[in-house]
């Protein structure tokens, strides 16, 4: 899942460790989310949204790659 985390973090001049500490996760976790290796849980996505003062969909982008549930 694509996201704007790196841009949002850079706009505030925060390091990955700084953001990780503010979110209660490790620097490696922030890196994994930024690079798309890990999709955050809903609680973590909400914490991110609150921290940046944005809606979740303003940070994360589904991409519409056909990953929706199919019957």
């Amino acid at each position, binding site marked *: 899942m694509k996201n704007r985390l790196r841009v949002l973090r850079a706009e505030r001049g*925060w*390091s990955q*460790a*700084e*953001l*990780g*500490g*503010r*979110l*209660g*996760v*490790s*620097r*490696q*976790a922030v890196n*994994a*989310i930024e690079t798309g*290796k*890990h999709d*955050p*849980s809903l609680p*973590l996505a909400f*914490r991110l949204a609150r*921290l940046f003062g944005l809606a979740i969909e303003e940070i994360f982008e589904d991409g519409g790659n056909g990953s929706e549930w199919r019957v």
Partner: protein
Amino acid sequence: MAEMGASGVSEPGLSGEAIERGRRRRKLTILALIFVLAFPAGFVVGFTEAEELLISEDRWPPALALGLSFAYLGLVLGGALALSRQVDEVERMITYKAVNVAAGAYAIVYPVWFLWWKGGFVTEPMHLALYAGFLIVFALASLFYRFR
């Protein structure tokens, strides 16, 4: 100033980097403590019983066996509980995946080894080798998922 620490509790006055450093320090302290407490047990086994470790007929003193098993249980359960409060969801997911890979490897290797033993091709399955194999696969899978 930071809003949340590792526990999700507000920690006013600390920068995010300070909170992250503290979390990493607590995690390393727990790991070091586990190592320091486990070392005497390994030392005892290594210097007193290692030569007979792989001989299944050999029996250890009951007190030693009980003491080691309680030490192992205490360290594993206590260590897992303490670490679970420090790791985040990414580390937890890596552990889940690595355990899954190791369990899958065990589920494949053991039956095949057992059947080949029954067919007279190989020696009887060794539980110690299977357990060591599980740990090795778990460690390799953890490294893979962490650094891929």
